[in-house]
């Protein structure tokens, strides 16, 4: 993973092709550390990810809960079609904020509306 910051938003670019059970715990823990370190907003750049399994999806669900508990936001961008298809199949596309590109994600609203939890 490569972690950077743009416009005050932490951008985490996953460099691995597979976000599966082998790396999902480390990924989840890394994002949790970022929120616990005081950062509110994380954008996960999925451009290099060509495969995700249910562990990877679960890591995003856990991280969304972490974001909410820190009154922060979590967004995803750059999903490849097959990866997006799995979010759609499991209806996590309705819960997670997903953008076609990191540019669009960074330009979106990052101010958390009071009481707004999901999409």
């Amino acid at each position, binding site marked *: 993973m490569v972690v950077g910051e743009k416009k005050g938003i932490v951008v985490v670019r996953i460099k691995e092709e597979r976000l599966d059970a082998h790396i999902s715990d480390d990924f989840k823990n890394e994002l949790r550390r970022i929120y616990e370190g005081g950062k509110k907003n994380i954008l996960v750049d999925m451009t290099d990810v060509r495969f995700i*399994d249910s562990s990877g999806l679960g890591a995003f*669900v*856990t991280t969304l809960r972490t974001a909410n508990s820190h009154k922060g936001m979590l967004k995803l961008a750059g999903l490849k079609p097959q990866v997006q298809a799995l979010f759609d199949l499991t209806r996590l596309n309705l819960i997670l904020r997903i953008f076609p590109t990191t540019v669009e994600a960074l330009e979106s609203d990052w101010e958390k509306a009071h009481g707004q939890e999901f999409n």
Partner: protein
Amino acid sequence: MAKNSIEVEIKVPNQTCYLGLIGRIAEEVAYAIDRYSGDRETLAYHLNLVLTEAAANAMKYAHEGDPEKSVHISINITDDVFCARVYDQGQGFDMNSLPSMDFEKLEDRGRGIFIMKSLMDCVSYKRLGDTNVLEISKKLK
């Protein structure tokens, strides 16, 4: 072996670092199928995914992450039917007793079997002697 039949046996240590290998083999099997009129890239992705899910379940839940154990997968494609069996030596469980997916709830777990059932025609889990067998199959168009 019957003509146009593919059989692949995989045995790897019970460690998640081998999930990528299992997934790549599954994709290669999809590309090796002789006659397939559907979207081969999607089939490859789906086979990668269901075998990854099945193997990860065996590693995490059946074998409880024990690195001394191994995961055995048997893949067979005959007469346009893809069939894979994943063997584990765990306690076993009743797949029918699992609650159905609740999309309203934000659960960390529980999507693996839903994914397998969504992408395959049949998913079953049975006890055979001292081994459990997860069998997944799909008719290939």
